[in-house]
């Protein structure tokens, strides 16, 4: 099979969009339903990425692929889930400002650890040696299959999020987000629910990080800056934090626009892409956040449509 027609950067660009959609969907459960401000997405994702990379490269695995990948990715997810549990416990009784500082602080710790533990992580120089758990012959084919697997994973996350809205569990999360003291007085162990939610969603963020590691095959501390948090948040908030499809629509309109449409279909001078566009992208995402929050805080898709959903589920 010849893949010459396919631009390799288009594959990695699409991978990035899909990945951020996944992060946005998980963020939707935290921010949109449960109303816990998580500004440390990159911390959980990055912990997954680095745990995966370090284990994959530095450990003398007694077995080959795909076990080497599977074990490293599992450990990465568990590490991120555990971090989610601890962070959720620390911020459980704080207001949203406290949650913001706590989660942001956590992501800073991950960056510091990745930078300073350079014997393991490669530090500022980065760490190579990661690879695909299979070989289809060409890098492009390998990347394409990895993109398909990532899309399937994010599709599963989308399905889970869609389903959560239709379950007693989702109702509990919305109740906690709406009025936690009232939920507590109804006998709901709200702190436990928040901890469980963070363990699951942050664990999945870590898994997305591990998937990312395979795609880029190189650990780079540059990826631990605020960029991916900002992209996931801007997308989710633009699309609508309270809606299942908010992250999908929003991320397509932001990251999709910048990293795919402008990158591949708008004829701009080459040096713009390496210098101006990445800076412009962050600035636009930041400005977009401000504008949306000022003028349409509920996002493009608007408020949760709980009445409609409940009617569809329980009427008749």
């Amino acid at each position, binding site marked *: 099979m010849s893949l010459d027609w396919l631009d390799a950067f288009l594959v990695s660009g699409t991978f990035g969009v899909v990945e951020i959609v996944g992060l946005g969907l998980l963020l939707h459960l935290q921010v949109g339903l449960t109303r816990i401000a998580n500004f440390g997405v990159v911390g959980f994702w990055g912990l997954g990425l680095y745990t995966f990379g370090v284990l994959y490269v530095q450990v003398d695995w007694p077995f080959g692929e795909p076990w080497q990948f599977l074990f490293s990715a599992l450990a990465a997810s568990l590490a991120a889930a555990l971090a989610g549990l601890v962070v959720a416990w620390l911020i459980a009784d704080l207001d949203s400002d406290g949650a913001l500082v706590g989660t942001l602080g956590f992501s800073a710790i991950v960056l510091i650890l990745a930078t300073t533990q350079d014997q393991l992580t490669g530090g500022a120089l980065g760490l190579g040696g990661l690879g695909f758990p299979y070989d289809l012959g060409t890098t492009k084919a390998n990347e394409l299959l990895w993109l398909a697997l990532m899309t399937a994973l994010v599709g599963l996350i989308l399905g889970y999020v869609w389903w*959560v809205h239709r379950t007693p569990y989702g109702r*509990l999360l919305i109740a906690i987000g709406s009025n936690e003291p*009232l939920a507590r007085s109804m006998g709901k162990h709200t702190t436990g629910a928040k901890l469980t939610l963070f363990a*699951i969603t942050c664990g999945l963020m870590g898994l997305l990080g591990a998937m990312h590691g395979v795609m880029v095959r190189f650990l780079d501390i540059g990826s631990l800056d605020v960029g991916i948090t900002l992209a996931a948040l801007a997308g989710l908030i633009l699309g609508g934090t309270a809606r299942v499809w908010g992250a999908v629509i929003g991320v397509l309109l932001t990251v999709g626009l910048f990293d795919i449409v402008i990158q591949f279909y708008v004829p701009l001078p080459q040096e713009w892409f390496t210098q101006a566009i990445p800076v412009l992208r962050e600035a636009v995402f930041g400005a977009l956040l401000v504008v949306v929050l000022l003028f349409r805080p509920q996002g493009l898709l608007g408020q949760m449509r709980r009445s409609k959903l409940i009617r569809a589920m329980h009427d008749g």
Partner: protein
Amino acid sequence: MGDQRRSSIRVEQVQKSYAGRMVVDVDELVLGDVPIEGLLGPNGAGKTTLMRMVMNSVSPDAGRITLNSSDGSTTTLSSLPTHKMAHHGVVKSTQVITDFDQLTILDSMLLAVATTGHEFPVRPGAERSLMSANEDEIRSYLERFGFADATAIAMSAGEKKLLDILRCLLLKPSILLLDEPTAGLPDEVTAKVLEVIRELAADGTSVVIVEHDLDVIWELCDEVTFMAEGRVLMKDDPASIRANATVIEKYLGAGHG
């Protein structure tokens, strides 16, 4: 008092001050040893604060609050987290109107009846089994209280207040604290709420009610506790309370009677 044992709450030497001012100072009080107990007193008497301390959503500065359950067991409520109160059968409606701004009326009711098992993060079919197990009860409440559309979010203050009471009922309390449950409700709804309270009490729930409509208190309650300035001044049957000189002076005389 009926022949069956009721759940009751014992309040001992409980004190609470705000900014140096004592707002509750109760030496000894048992709440809920009769089917329906009224908690009466002027505004600021400390009734709401006392109920909040029972629920442990406000912590007392001193003293002990214990639950004597109908099964004979004793639980120290002051060391029980709020979310465990309902599991021990202690449930309270709030005086201030409160609701889940994102949840529909039906959602609120299903939330009340859902167990931890239903609310597991991955459990296929949980919603269906939750609904089928509780549909009859929920529908009968909805019909009885005339909710036009349970799939809507409660809008009016009256609707929210009523929904709060329904949530409490669905939690199947053994002791139910109602803090001005009928304030702001239309008369015909008030009548329905009182009817449910009577039924509940007849079924063995101990109801403690703060209510400003004195006719309701005299008619509904088996016993009345009278509070003023944070203290319990007396606890007696409604007729004696009504005739008491102190009560008349501190409360009924002041335009309430």
